[in-house]
């Protein structure tokens, strides 16, 4: 199935395409945030209980009760208001969304305003019905832009957030200035190095040898048979860094 994209009209007439995050990413982000807010609320309650105990041991029972009530109110407020407050403060992101690699944007690709974020959160009342966000999830699966009711009403979409895209462009341009490698070769080296920890040793050394034989004129495939994985990795990194490094 082709990935869904949100095509945004750029300010200069050059369109920008953003990858739409699917129900999986959405659910992963929600569960992460749910765990976080539950922990925060429990932490507040625990703090309240400890303070109450300390005050009770000191013979101050009445202030202890007040502290516990305040902690309870704070815990409930943290649990209920977590999403609207964090989304507004972090401009369309939450720790869960960040972990899932997604962010909220408007249909124009802009950072959503406070009003849109609040309306989006308000409609959780509908999306969470009857249990476990079933309405929201069904809506998300059935709509073209993978949105729940809240997003539909607020005009927002969840898109894939590239991890530090600007820095990756900076790093790429710096490497292109330093090395004589082609863009395709750079991409292959990056891909292999990114996947290095997840590949088996035999497989990654085989791939590294094949790649080096193709792009590095100074690499002798016969001698390379004896080189270990870390040595091959170091060779690839040296190629990326260029001759000046």
């Amino acid at each position: 199935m082709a990935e869904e994209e949100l095509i945004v009209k750029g300010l200069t007439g050059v369109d920008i395409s953003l990858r739409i995050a699917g129900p999986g990413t959405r659910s992963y982000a929600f569960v992460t945030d749910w765990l976080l807010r539950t922990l925060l609320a429990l932490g507040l309650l625990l703090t309240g209980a400890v303070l109450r105990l300390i005050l009770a041991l000191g013979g101050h029972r009445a202030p202890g009760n007040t502290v516990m009530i305040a902690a309870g109110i704070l815990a409930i407020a943290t649990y209920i208001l977590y999403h609207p407050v964090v989304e507004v403060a972090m401009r369309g992101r939450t720790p869960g969304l960040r972990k899932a690699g997604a962010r909220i944007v408007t249909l124009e690709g802009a950072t959503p305003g406070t009003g849109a974020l609040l309306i989006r959160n308000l409609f959780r009342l509908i999306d969470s019905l009857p249990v476990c966000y079933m309405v929201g999830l069904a809506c998300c699966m059935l709509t073209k832009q993978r949105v729940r009711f809240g997003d539909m009403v607020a005009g927002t979409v969840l898109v894939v957030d590239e991890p530090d895209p600007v820095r990756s462009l900076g790093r790429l341009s710096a490497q292109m200035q330093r090395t004589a490698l082609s863009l395709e070769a750079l991409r292959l080296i990056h891909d292999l190095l990114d996947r290095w920890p997840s590949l088996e040793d035999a497989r990654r050394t085989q791939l590294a040898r094949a790649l080096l034989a193709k792009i590095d004129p100074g690499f002798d495939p016969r001698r390379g048979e004896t080189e270990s994985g870390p040595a091959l990795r170091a060779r690839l990194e040296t190629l990326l860094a260029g001759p000046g490094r």
Partner: protein
Amino acid sequence: MPAPDANAATWIRARAPQWQALATEATTAAQRPRATVDEALSTLRTYRVMAQHLASARELLPGSFLAAALENACATLHAAINRAPRLTGVRWLTLFRDDIPAAAASVRVLALWIAALLLASTFAGWWLISTYPELISLIASPRMIDGVERGHLWTYQVLDIAPPAMLSAQIFSNNVVVTLGAFCTGLLFGLGAFYMIALNGLMLGGLLAFTHQHGLALGLVKFTLAHGPVELSVMCLAAAAGTALGEAVIRPVLPSRVESLRRRAAELGPLLLGCALLLLGSGLIEGFLSPRVMVSIPVRLGVGLGYWTLMLLWLSGRLMPRAPRVTPAAHTPRPDPRAIDPGRREGRTP
């Protein structure tokens, strides 16, 4: 003629030094909480250059690593440039002075219909329980029924044990949930809002009839006198806003129903903020003033009517009247276009 690959390579080598600077500028722009005019113009210049490079990269290296990196950097800058402004003091003032009253005015007629529905369902509830008293078990809990039958109103019993601040918070959150529920369920073609209002009216009427049967109706009215008028009005307003959402789905004013719904929700959003604030006041009254037996009926009536009048003045825009806008047209007469370009007025080309 050079091969396309050679073209791409030359193009990359020529522009790579620029990208690092552009990337740095983009990072700074995305993280900057606020910008001066010069900074904003510089960001726009960066965006323009980056968009040009993106278009070229798509042409020369479609689907490449570089095109993707440029696209992502462009998207980051696009989001930073199109960021909604922060809520400043002026924006808050506009919200309270103009946006909330405007949203309230747009649902005024619907609110009156919803109030009529509430009234009708209250009468229906009264009639139902007066005619079939055994049906009270559908509306009230056994504890409430027992209390009333023994001559005690549940309101004072519950309110006596919890501290007023805690009680206010609890009442406020309950009311906010009901109000927001009435708004959100309006999405279901307005039927959800009707249901919530009719249900609340039935309960209100039924409880009034039940307490009247046991000689406690005056006590209940006395209890609700201070906070009730605003609380019920806010509920009607929220339900009217929900109905307006449903109307936007049924009778869209824009090409698609979703667009129509989105616009209506954006217009009505501020009204909900106003409703929440009004409910905060109601919650405080209900938590601190309503449970006090010593407070007399005239005082409760005064507070209730006073707060309700304040609400009406605010929502009608009379509490904070808008300053008359001075337009240049008011001072300087517009020049007659014929005097400047008579040919244009006549439709002739020069």
